[in-house]
């Protein structure tokens, strides 16, 4: 059977994928550069086909708490926003992680800090991977680098969110959100009934206290010794993610002297830099983390002895660089290059940065 191919924006792909992935509820608030998500959903009117609910909330704070409620029912719930809106969601994300609820949250990053700019950025890496909210918790973070992956990661996100009962963040950026590419559209997954939810994911959700004891969804545990146990359980879960969920892609790393590390839009530009550098005779490769948490630490560690140096390429002042350095150790050469604050670097600029910061040190 020939797969259906559509040309769409990354943001539109998120919306289309949500309906096809059997999402039950979307709760969102407009913010550039991701507003096409809710606009597309309102255009698609999924409540008339799959029964999926779409609500425009009064704030991102309300959105994430609506997601909390919907997820507490055992349903597939999601929201999307951009950087300032994600900051407002920090509270809700922490509660969702604490109450062990599954959900998908998309951040189409723009330049900050503060109101910043509406142009693309990758400066929310720390927020996504380390400090999504208060308390010891981690989100599983997926970083799409194409419109196809924007589409695919919604379904994958829900799968992982329910596998771990944990929030999954799709960390995208204004480039991937706004650009159009071809997308192979997958088969639609039907929404689950309450009975199917219980059968598939266990009987923890608020489906009504019928033929069972009441269920309580909460992140509260006043007794510290018990709260410590809750934390142990969460940490064990994050460790399992580190062991089972690391995803990455490598391009010409086998013989590379220099390895660029980049995710999202920066990985696309860096892939072109690999082509440019190879034409000039430099052995350059690219490691693209697909999961930012868990981070592909092992593969970097394996590379460190055969590589002269690493270049972190990100539209930020160098946040992922810290994780690379942690992976390969302080004595390994790790530099970073990036335009930021809403400026998108071109492959030409990255190539110059690569030569100046890394290659010139060795050749």
């Amino acid at each position, binding site marked *: 059977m020939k797969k259906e191919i559509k*040309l769409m924006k990354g943001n539109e792909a998120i919306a289309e994928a949500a309906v096809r992935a059997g999402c039950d509820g979307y709760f969102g608030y407009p913010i550039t*550069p991701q507003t096409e998500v809710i606009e597309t959903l309102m255009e698609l009117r999924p409540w008339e086909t799959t029964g999926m609910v779409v609500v425009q909330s009064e704030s991102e704070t309300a959105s994430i708490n609506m997601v909390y409620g919907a997820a507490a029912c055992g349903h597939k719930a999601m929201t999307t926003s951009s950087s300032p809106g994600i900051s407002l969601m920090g509270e809700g994300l922490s509660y969702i992680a604490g109450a062990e609820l599954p959900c998908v949250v998309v951040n189409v990053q723009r330049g900050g800090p503060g109101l910043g700019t*509406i142009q693309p950025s990758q400066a929310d890496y720390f927020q996504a991977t380390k400090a999504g909210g208060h308390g010891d918790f981690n989100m599983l973070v997926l970083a799409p680098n194409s419109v196809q992956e924007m589409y695919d990661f919604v379904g994958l996100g829900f799968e992982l969110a329910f596998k771990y009962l944990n929030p999954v963040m799709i960390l995208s950026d204004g*480039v991937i959100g706004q650009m*159009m590419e071809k997308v192979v559209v997958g088969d639609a997954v039907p929404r689950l009934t309450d009975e199917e939810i219980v059968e598939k994911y266990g009987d923890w959700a608020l489906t009504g206290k019928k033929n069972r004891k009441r269920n309580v969804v909460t992140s509260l545990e006043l007794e510290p010794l018990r709260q410590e146990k809750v934390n142990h359980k969460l940490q064990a879960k994050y460790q399992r993610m580190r062991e089972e969920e690391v995803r990455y892609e490598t391009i010409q790393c086998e013989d590379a002297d220099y390895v660029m590390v980049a995710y999202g839009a920066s990985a696309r*530009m860096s892939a072109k830099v690999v082509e440019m550098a190879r034409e000039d005779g430099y052995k350059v490769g690219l490691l693209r983390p697909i999961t930012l948490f868990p981070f592909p630490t092992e593969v970097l560690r394996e590379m460190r002895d055969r590589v002269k140096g690493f270049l972190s390429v990100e539209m930020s002042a160098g946040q992922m660089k810290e994780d690379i350095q942690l992976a390969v150790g302080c004595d390994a050469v790790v530099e970073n290059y990036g335009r930021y604050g809403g400026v998108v670097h071109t*492959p030409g600029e990255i190539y110059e940065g690569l030569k100046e910061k890394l290659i010139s040190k060795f050749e």
Partner: protein
Amino acid sequence: MTEEMIIAGFGGQGVLSMGKILAYSGVMQDFEVSWMPAYGPEMRGGTANVTVVISDKPISSPISHQYDTAIILNQQSMDKFESMVRPGGILIYDTNGIVKHPTRKDIKIYTIDATEEAAKRGNTRLFNTMILGGYLKVRPVVTLDNVFQGLKKSLPERAWKTLPANEEAVRIGMDLIKEVK
């Protein structure tokens, strides 16, 4: 075959939709495509531009520092993008409103007076499809058949009645384009 191009002008000139038609045409021809707009408030009345890449291979970067083709529709864009055309590449521009003409010798330069022609025909909305026609004359990266299909795909159904006029505009554009020697 890989064609990296930028289309730049004022918001409202149909810059983004011209790129969209090309991207859809590329899809019709089973090519890989990417369409990356400069987005935001600058679209409303200010400058607008879109980078379109069409290739028979997977596209690495949707953003470029050098273009095979630049279609320039106002002076600001000329100032910004003339230097970014790859040596041996193509620059197409509408002379309307251009006071500083391009000077590069290592690229091919074409003019297309589509603003004037569209006004003469009493339908300024056909301006961008004329430019598109001119471009396809000098860079036939996609077949006309696929362009017409792409045109249809990129328009909502309610606008399909404008298809014949747009198709004609593409053909007019092919005749209008002139190389600057």
